[in-house]
């Protein structure tokens, strides 16, 4: 019987305490961000999809087509091709295709690169109805940026 009264008393007290807590929260400012109006800033290490790094002087990609990133990729989303131009020591990049639909943003490609040619972009709001939009031509992207 004591449990019965105890349940009623302690129970009612706990219920009132609960109401007090939510009431206090009611008057506190909101903690959410209204997304399209307040855009959060990405941290410096944020991993968007990868992008090519351009040489500071020439503006051409740093990539020498060693294929290390392609081999390191767990999900086969990188296809690249290059050709050796006349009078140059290194190969130059002609095509760098990223299939972002398969990418898991693990960063293996960036780590595998020994020539400072790849980095993560800061793009996070990509969306499309078309699957082809996510097969990204990074060479073209770099040219557009320049």
């Amino acid at each position, binding site marked *: 019987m004591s449990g*019965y009264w105890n349940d*009623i008393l302690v129970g009612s007290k706990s*219920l009132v305490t*609960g*109401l007090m*807590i*939510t*009431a206090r*929260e*009611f008057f*506190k*400012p*909101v*903690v*959410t961000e*209204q997304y399209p109006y307040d855009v959060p800033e990405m941290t410096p290490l944020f991993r968007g999809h990868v992008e090519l790094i351009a040489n500071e002087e020439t503006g051409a990609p740093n990539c020498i087509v060693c294929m290390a990133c392609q081999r390191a990729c767990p999900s086969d989303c990188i296809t690249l091709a290059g050709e050796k131009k006349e009078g140059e020591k290194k190969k130059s990049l002609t095509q760098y295709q990223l299939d972002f639909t398969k990418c898991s943003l693990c960063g293996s490609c960036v780590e595998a690169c020994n020539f400072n040619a790849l980095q993560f972009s800061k793009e996070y709001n990509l969306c499309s109805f078309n699957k082809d939009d996510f097969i990204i031509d990074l060479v073209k992207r770099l040219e557009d940026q320049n």
Partner: protein
Amino acid sequence: MDTSIWRPILYLIGIMVFAGLNAAYLGWCERKGAGRIQRRTGPMEAGYEGLLQPLADGIKLLTKQLLVPSGADGILFRVAPVLAMIPAITSLVVIPFSENIQARAMELSVLLLFAIASIAMMAVLLGGWASGNKYSVISAARAVSQNLAYEIPMLLTVICIVMISGSMNLRDIAMDQQGGFWHWNIFRLDNFHFLYMWVAFIIFFICSIAETNRAPFDMAEAESELVAGFMTEYSSMGFGLFMMGEYLNIVVGACLTTTLFLGGWDCPFGMFPGVWWFIIKIYILIFTFIWIRWTYPRTQIYKLLNLSWKILIPFSLVNVLLTAFFIKVF
């Protein structure tokens, strides 16, 4: 011209408008209230602070198709949502909003109200049963046992009020409490009724939460157990009517609590009584409904029945005895 015809029609229109606005905007209030409690903004996009949200929701629901599942009982399935709405609107007819604003003053209006309120649970039963969905059937079964368990303490507390006021007319009950908060049934000074009437008020309030199927007693809806219970198979306005019915039931519950316990349209300090006091009181109560819903987890059906049979019913029986005793002695 004979005004006696126009008066009821005007009141009916007024009630329809009141019911419609409440059904639409309580949804918005609930979402805003929940948002504030959870420290987010709630609806913001449609209109200023999302004020047009009910309109948008209404248009969306109206333009959708009412699907009747193949295993369902077609007639009952369509009737149930309407049944959820009608008793709530009908109940508003006998509610005295102020001394003069009452569509129909009846001698036995309390009895009528409770008779009609039971039909609202019929809607849940029929909707759940007719859906032919197993979750809905469980929900219907829960709704019946819950309704049964909570009608009893609710009516027992109402008996206390009837004994004190000596009337079953809601208007007379409210008139009896005029003249400041010390005349209200909950704090009534004469005959020392305040000693136990606040318990009756709490019992009545808990029961009205249970009767209106609100959290933490939303056993029939229980979205994380029974998906949405009786509403699982409803789409379009079928769903919309259930939602509106739920909010209107809250309004009726709040009106009833105000009339029975909180002095109806009386000002707490005994001055300038009027309809605004009634409105303020019912919205405070409605806010409490919302506040409670967004604070507690849901109870479980057997714990809920235990609460009713083991705690509320004994307490309300004792209350009836005490009322009789105090009336007789003092």
